[in-house]
């Protein structure tokens, strides 16, 4: 694995913003890195909407929000001195993995991030962490905890 290939997994949260800042600070003007900003889509739960159109609206709203965040994150990295040509962005739509034979989407965002890391041979994986209690982690899960436990052959930066 090439540790200079950096996968920066974000979700448009403040934690992700901190992860972007941290990555920009560490990598700065170095030109032999590659940073991929990755967002794995977790669509709103369809069952909590009374009809298809309100669900579609919520999905679109979230998509717009994330795409804007990816753009801002890229701009912020450039502001911090990272060369634009070493930054790429990727929006992994749920259509790309829901219903696939090995994954029903139930395995969660962490699983998809690790799939991308492995397939792209990223040697460094960066995630933000919101800091949850043990009880919250049991009930709702934690992307960063799963990544720490299950990522192999890769350095993981967890930014708080």
């Amino acid at each position, binding site marked *: 694995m090439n540790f200079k290939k950096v996968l920066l997994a974000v979700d448009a949260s403040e934690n992700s913003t901190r992860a972007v800042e941290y990555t920009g600070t560490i990598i700065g003007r170095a030109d032999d890195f590659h940073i991929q900003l990755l967002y794995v889509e977790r669509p709103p739960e369809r*069952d*909590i909407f009374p009809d298809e159109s309100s669900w579609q609206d919520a999905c679109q709203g979230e998509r717009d929000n994330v795409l804007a965040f990816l753009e801002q994150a890229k701009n912020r990295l450039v502001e911090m001195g990272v060369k634009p040509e070493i930054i790429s962005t990727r929006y992994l739509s749920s259509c790309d993995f829901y219903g696939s034979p090995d994954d*029903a989407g*139930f395995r*969660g965002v962490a699983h998809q991030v690790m799939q991308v890391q492995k397939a792209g041979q990223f040697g460094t994986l960066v995630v933000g962490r919101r800091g949850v209690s*043990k009880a*919250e982690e049991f*009930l709702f899960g*934690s992307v960063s905890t799963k990544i720490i436990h299950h990522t192999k052959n890769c350095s993981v930066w967890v930014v708080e």
Partner: protein
Amino acid sequence: MNASARDLIARLMPSFPLKHSGKIYTDTSEFMDISYGDVIVLNSSSFLVLRDEAERRFGIEDPKYWVKRCRDLNTGQRRILKLVFYEKFEQKIGQMTINCYRSPKKESRVLDLVRGDSRFMQGITLKDEAGNPVRILEIILGKSLDNYVEDLDMDHRTYFHELFPEILEKFMGSCEAVKFMHDNGERHGDIRRDHIFVEYETGAYRWIDFDYAYESTENPFGLDLFGLGNILQFITGKGVHDNASLGREFYSSLSPDDFALIFSNRLINLKKLFPYIPVSLNRVLLHFSQGTYVTYDNVGEMLADLKKGLDDVASL
């Protein structure tokens, strides 16, 4: 203007006092208007409304105006009709508050999935004229698991040695049923000890109420697992043992790690209270304790551990 139900009732259920006959509803959107003596007509089926259902928890009766206890006028059978009610409310779980949603379409989907499976309540969905998916549920003649266990008039030792092995085995069947839901991309959503009914005739454990939905999380099975842990704690302890009931001297010998992760006043290291509980079973309980470093990711993991627990309980 809804037509009178008088002629329909007179023809199909002449024993019903006609002075109480109400209106015919083919659109159930305004469910608050539908009450005793009204008839809900869905396709070719007609249901005479007898009363609104109510849920009793903690001594309080909570009416459910969108759930009607009915009589099928064509077959004479009793049925529960759940009308469409989109509700979002906050649910408090321990110190946390989460958004919970009522989803008729989710319950309809689950009813389709579990059709013919006696581990679950049975029912079908018919749409009314406004397109509302009305769930028509068979009534389970039985007692909720919490009432069943609490009504057993015996001390814990006798309960644990004589009745608990069978109760645990049946509960594991209920866990298998939840695993089946998860394997098929569904969640129960509201796993509580009063949502398992023990059927009078067969003794079978059957899950009820599948209409709760939640926002997406990284651990889609967490809430269901939490519910199963609570029930295991309840049936193993023959009730809930909390800081109020434990007695000052015994309570002072305990540490926070002995209590439940979410409901932090409930003792979950039950072996300290009942030393004859096998270590293997107690270990499963400790996965739900404040002291745990490992929690279950899925029901299959919990069941694998429970099998050893059951073997040890059965050989006491």
